[in-house]
């Protein structure tokens, strides 16, 4: 199956700093999403971005599908950005992978005031 690797595993920032989270995946995908899991366990969908670039406020994401990686940028970080960020990928290639999102292990982000 598809392998997903996220880096860095942990990231500690001061409020106002910028950061870049990376997601590498091992095979072609037609579905790539970034999620933020808050301290209460809720997974919030940040982006659906199998290719290209999107922006939403202080967050933006870029996926280069041909090189099998995606980046999540957080600018002017705030304490409420703390939590775990997951990259998840999927394929409609059929078989056991269809309809399945494979998640990376996540990046734990801590933003200090």
């Amino acid at each position: 199956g598809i392998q997903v690797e996220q880096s860095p595993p942990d990231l500690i920032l001061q409020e106002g700093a910028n950061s870049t989270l990376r997601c590498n995946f091992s095979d072609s995908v037609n579905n790539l999403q970034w999620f933020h899991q808050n301290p209460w366990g809720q997974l919030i969908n940040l982006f659906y971005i199998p290719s290209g670039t999107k922006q939403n406020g202080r967050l933006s994401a870029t996926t280069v599908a041909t090189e099998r990686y995606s980046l999540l940028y957080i600018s002017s970080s705030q304490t409420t950005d703390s939590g775990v960020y997951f990259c998840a990928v999927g394929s409609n290639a059929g078989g056991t992978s269809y309809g399945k999102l494979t998640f990376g292990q996540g990046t734990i982000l801590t933003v200090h005031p």
Partner: protein
Amino acid sequence: EAGVTQSPTHLIKTRGQQATLRCSPISGHTSVYWYQQALGLGLQFLLWYDEGEERNRGNFPPRFSGRQFPNYSSELNVNALELEDSALYLCASSKGLTGFKEKLFFGSGTQLSVL
């Protein structure tokens, strides 16, 4: 518009018992997915239902089963509970058979503790 709702929020069972977890998708969504998030194991795909049919399942034993009702809500059943089944169970929904090219929206989860 209501998001994905799951019940109960917490569930405590003992080994060997059965657990039933429930999920209501976003209105208009026909696909429901179940994921397990156990400590140290990350998020693992369990089951996918669409239009009342099981479309795919992850690498879990048969004692993990479920169903999808005509109103698209879903139930996950875990029989013969084992200690390692303790985890956060997350349900997600999406619009359904679009070649899996769409966002998934997750509920807040059910925390299952097996004693």
